[in-house]
């Protein structure tokens, strides 16, 4: 029962996050390209995701007459379902924080968490491949083919780049991997896996961008060559489902990077630094004050009212986060979310700045550079790990 409630809450949070991730991406890319981005629906375009969702729902849902109806229909469901299942495995905070004897910030705590996540992401390619095939049309087929080839190629590097972390952590359980990263070098540099596994991390993040079909690896949906790739024929909410699946995958991959390489919910500062308890609340209050200034000075009309609500939410949220008892509990989720947002920003940043690879470059890069480097990283890590055993016979 508790699990069901947690799943419902997580689903709500993730769906909202997906919607506002699109807003975030459009705003950041607009900033990079010296534009305003969404601006008119709600203050600063904050209601744009809602408007988009409603628009998707009311568009006509068309199925090409020559399409394979069954496969065409299940493909988007498959894509979104798998993408959302993966997020259920992610721990957002310490398992020590419990209500009714159940950890609050995670839905499931599997012993083989990482393997299970890879299992789910490895079948994620079906959504794209089947969509491409079942549309029974040239460009989607080419997009689906490209996507399958790309995802198979980069999955190898993705998995191999993570094995180094597994060697150090000695477990597949997410919570154990995160707890293994507590402690500090020289009392202030956190013992995150990214430091010994920098090469592994670079391989991971590159392969992850390719796995999620994002720029500069977005060949499956390259507009100039393939119209819109595998989802060319999809309209209405089926298209929206592919869209959501892509963004959900981005979030999963960022969460995984946070867990494996950046200490998950652990704070970057030593426990003795008491003031870090006030960062989340203080940050929200500062944001609220900025919003208040913006509301009074820049906003007019209905936007002023809307932004006043945002201001109020920020200030009240900040005040709640500053309360004793609450501020200790939200530390984990706060740091986790902050790290994930940093990765998502990185995603958007690469989208805004890098051009797309050519297809042969993509394949060469994956097989001739990324795979050897991640293999070498694995060999070196295993060698370093085994040296103490050799010394003691």
């Amino acid at each position, binding site marked *: 029962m508790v699990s069901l409630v947690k799943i419902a809450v997580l689903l709500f949070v993730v769906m909202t996050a997906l919607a506002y991730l699109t807003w975030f991406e459009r705003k950041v890319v607009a900033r990079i390209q010296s534009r305003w981005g969404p601006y008119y629906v709600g203050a600063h375009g904050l209601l744009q995701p809602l408007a988009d969702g409603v628009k998707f729902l009311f568009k006509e849902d068309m199925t090409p007459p020559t399409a*394979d109806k069954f*496969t065409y229909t299940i493909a988007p469901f498959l894509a979104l379902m798998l993408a959302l299942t993966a997020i259920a495995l992610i721990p957002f905070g310490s398992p020590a924080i419990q209500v009714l004897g159940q950890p609050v910030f995670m839905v499931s705590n*599997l*012993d*083989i968490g990482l*393997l*299970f996540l*890879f*299992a*789910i992401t*490895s*079948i994620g*390619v*079906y959504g794209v*491949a*089947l969509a*491409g*095939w*079942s549309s029974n049309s040239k460009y989607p*087929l080419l997009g*689906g*083919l490209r996507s*399958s*080839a790309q*995802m*198979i190629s980069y*999955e190898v590097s993705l998995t191999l780049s993570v094995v180094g972390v597994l060697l150090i952590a000695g477990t*597949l359980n997410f919570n154990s991997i995160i707890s293994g990263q507590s402690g500090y070098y020289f009392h202030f540099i956190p013992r995150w896996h990214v430091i010994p596994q920098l090469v592994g991390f670079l391989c991971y993040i590159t392969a992850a961008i390719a796995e999620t079909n994002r720029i500069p690896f977005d060949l499956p949906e390259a507009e100039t060559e393939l119209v819109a790739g595998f989802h060319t024929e999809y309209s209405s909410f089926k298209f929206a489902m592919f869209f959501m699946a892509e963004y959900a995958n981005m979030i999963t991959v960022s969460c995984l990077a946070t867990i494996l390489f950046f200490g998950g919910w652990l704070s970057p500062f030593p426990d003795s630094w008491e003031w870090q308890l006030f960062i989340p609340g203080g940050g929200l209050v500062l944001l609220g004050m900025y919003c208040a200034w913006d509301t009074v000075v820049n906003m007019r009309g209905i936007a002023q009212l809307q932004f006043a609500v945002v201001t109020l939410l920020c200030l009240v949220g900040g005040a709640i986060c500053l309360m004793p008892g609450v501020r200790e509990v939200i530390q984990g989720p706060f740091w986790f979310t902050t790290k994930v947002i940093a990765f998502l920003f990185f995603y958007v940043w690469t989208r805004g700045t890098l051009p797309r690879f050519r297809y042969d470059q993509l394949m060469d890069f994956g097989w001739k550079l990324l795979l050897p480097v991640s293999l070498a990283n694995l060999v070196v890590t295993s060698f370093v790990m085994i040296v103490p055993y050799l010394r003691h016979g």
Partner: protein
Amino acid sequence: MSVPFIVFFACAFLAVLGAVLLIFSWEPIHSALSLVLVMMSLAVLYLLLGAEFIAAVQIIVYAGAIMVLFVFVIMLLNAGTEERTDASKLAKLAGVPMGFFLLLLIARWLWTSVVGTTIANGLGARSNAGVSTRELSMVLFQQYLFPFEATSILILVALLGAWILARKND
């Protein structure tokens, strides 16, 4: 009727359904998808037996890698609907009874084997059946190290063979 019991029969049914659909569907892609269904159901059955690692590997290797490759090749070749000739008389007269005979043998074996008793004694009681990843790797890399390495060399040879065959002669 416990929950694992129901899940077992649901997955067993899905696995058989997938296998039947695999043979009877006309589109190669549908056949491939049915096979994926079989693999996934088998993975859940492994989970019920407490073999988490095997379940995950089943999905990653079979559903995630091999079947994706199958689907990829079917898409690449743009294979059309299957053409069928009438089944031969020999297959009809001898094959079907032989199939049922095999089924009978398997059922008889299951009746007495560990798997059968585990199911009968209630699934989900994974006290002795469950093997953790650590224990599995201990056995694999100590007791069965030689067969394991021999298998990997065999796979490597097969890989090189495929490369030699696919290489252009120039």
